[in-house]
């Protein structure tokens, strides 16, 4: 099943290579991977959507990377997930109004309207991005770029290393397997 992980990384040369290399060599399937700056200088933040039977193992392997500061699985907690897509859609002059209406209805912004193409920008939940892409596909998609998922917990709980939190280590909760085979 798919799991959404938020990973904080000490921003050092090669750190992204280490993370990606780990996903590849351990055979974890990445559905989406997004990396960028966090609120703390020198700390990068990654949202990874992985398809893994044993997500606990993925988390522990990630945690072995020296630059990995924290890993949280936010799959089953209240979380906002967003994705941005840029789409260049081909359209004839006749159909342009209809296409713009589809965009308006589904919340996409037309940010570049030309004689034969329209570039849309949509930031939404990933399923809504899928929906928009499906809706405009009949017009003809010339170009598409999706950003990958960005995830953040709802409410006051934050995935942050904070200034006071150092050293910040991954704490595996429930190290003991609750479904003990004993008995």
């Amino acid at each position, binding site marked *: 099943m798919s799991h959404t992980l938020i990973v904080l990384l000490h921003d050092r040369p*090669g750190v992204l*290579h280490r993370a990606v290399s780990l996903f590849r*060599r351990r055979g974890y399937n990445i559905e989406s991977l997004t990396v960028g700056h966090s609120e703390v200088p020198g700390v990068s933040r990654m949202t990874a959507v992985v398809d893994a039977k044993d997500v606990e193992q993925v988390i522990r392997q990630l*945690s*072995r990377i*020296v630059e990995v500061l924290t890993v949280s699985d936010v799959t089953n907690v209240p979380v906002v997930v967003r994705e941005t897509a840029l789409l260049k859609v081909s359209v004839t002059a006749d159909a342009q109004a209809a296409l713009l209406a589809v965009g308006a209805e589904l919340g996409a912004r037309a940010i570049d309207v030309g004689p034969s193409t329209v570039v849309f920008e949509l930031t939404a939940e990933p399923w809504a991005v899928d929906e928009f892409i499906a809706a405009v596909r009949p017009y003809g998609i010339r170009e598409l770029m999706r950003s990958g998922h960005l995830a953040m917990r709802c409410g006051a709980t934050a995935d942050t290393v904070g200034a006071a939190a150092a050293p*910040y280590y991954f704490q595996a909760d429930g*190290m003991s397997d609750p479904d*003990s085979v004993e*008995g």
Partner: protein
Amino acid sequence: MSTTLEARTGAQIMCEALIRQGVEVMFGIPGGAIMPFYHAMPEYADRLRHVLCRHEQGAGHAAEGYARASGRVGVCIGTSGPGATNLVTPIADAWMDSTPLVAITGQVHSALIGTDAFQETDITGITVPITKHNYLVRHVADLPRVFAEAFHLASTGRPGPVLVDVTKDAQQATAVPEWDVTLDLPGYRDDRERAVDHDAVREAVRLLQRARRPLILAGNGVIQSGAHAELRTLAERTGIPVITTLHGLGAFPQDHPLSLGMPGMHGWVHVNRAIQECDVLFNIGSRFDDRVTGKVSAFAPRAAVIHLDVDPSEIGKNVRTAVALVGDARRVLRVLLDELPACAPPPSAWLARIRAMQEVHEPRQAYRRRPDTPVLMPHDVYAALNAALAARGSYRVVTDVGQHQMWAAQLLDWRRPRTHITSGGSGTMGFAVPAALGAAIACPDETIWVVVGDGGFQMTNQELATIQQEGITNVKIALINNGYLGMVRQWQELFEGRRYSGTPLSGPSFTRLAEAYGVRGIAVDTVDAVPGAIAEAWDHPGPVLIDFRVEREANVFPIVPQGKSIGEMLVSADRAEEPPCLTH
């Protein structure tokens, strides 16, 4: 050495950093990109010995052998490009066997990086999956911190290899070193220091006390953390029998009444059956490698597993775990012993049952007996070597990879930690001769026996020249010469209808080859000559190679065929053992 405030080259700083880390010896080969470092070495030669090897692979294994024998960090050196890539095999080996290793490589001038310069190789990129961490150092100012971090990472937590790649200009630039550095490793923690989970300890104690058929499985972690005394106390206090993995050999004395021997692909029948029957399996510092578990879904089907490991990622990775204990084996075992009443009744009926299984199976194990033949069997060599080791003491045994390695694990009695040194996880042929030279330097007052096949010996035998040049006298090589890549040949015999493709092997005159390197060569092809040759080798005040020309098609039994459960073993070429039937 320069005074504290004097500026010095990066290369000098590297030497001083190594001395500050307590390094006394390093193994390597120079080349263009690492020449500044070599230029600095003679100034420090009184404190920092450099051993020139004949191949960087040899240098890496020598550093591993040094580390495994001494418990300290091994250091190896290579130049950029091919020097660095030649180190990849020992780095991978150290990664698989959690051996503390710092590999230092030269890199091209930082201005040339990325231009495919002469001997430029992206060694940090190449070694990402086989190092605990690695560094590319471009600035001289970073050297003190990077070296401090590299040794810290290599030697703490779960030990492993760390590579430090230093550009030529960083070695040449000058700076006043700032030794008072703080490690900048916010994402790293030494899991040995992790607070002991007392609830988990109590749960483990409860399981051990309620168990009717408990077993302890002891691995490399016991040796690495120095927990052998605690392991022995635990076993004796509870009466729980102990099995030892390949890398756990020596963690528990094999002549102890509670010692059962080695499990797994070439483990004893009674040991594997005990695993299949046990109701609690306490794994201390081993990682449930597939050579131990066989078909993992059928491994220890009745057992609640307690797993103690310094690396949390090992827990639950291969085998379902009922109780997880993360931390240093010695520390956690001490806490556990505090919780364990002194008088838990020993499950003696269980031990008696295992011993009964051993009685039934041992006589059937043809590999133990010498078939009625005048040909020198490998087992004759092991029997005589075992007797000599017991009589003389003060030894280490370094084995290579193949049949001879498994016979050594099975047929020698392992009594003390760090006496058995081999390449386990990686199974690197060519490991033994260089690793033995490293062990010989770590333990100059002990006799280092090498047990090596004719195949593996020919992969790294050039290190005999290093032994000669360094004046190493305490290495004695037992070459188990069967004229085959024996372990592969055995699989071809048992599972591929004796189709010996690519396995028959010729060699030089091994004794004359040895003599060419100033190593005494002795050839043995009769049973009677074995003990005398071993005694002669032991007494000779220099390195010796004994070419034991053994039966060519002897096999290692028992063997669990690939993909089978450890309950299904072949005990001879034509007979399998049925899975056990638990009667109570």
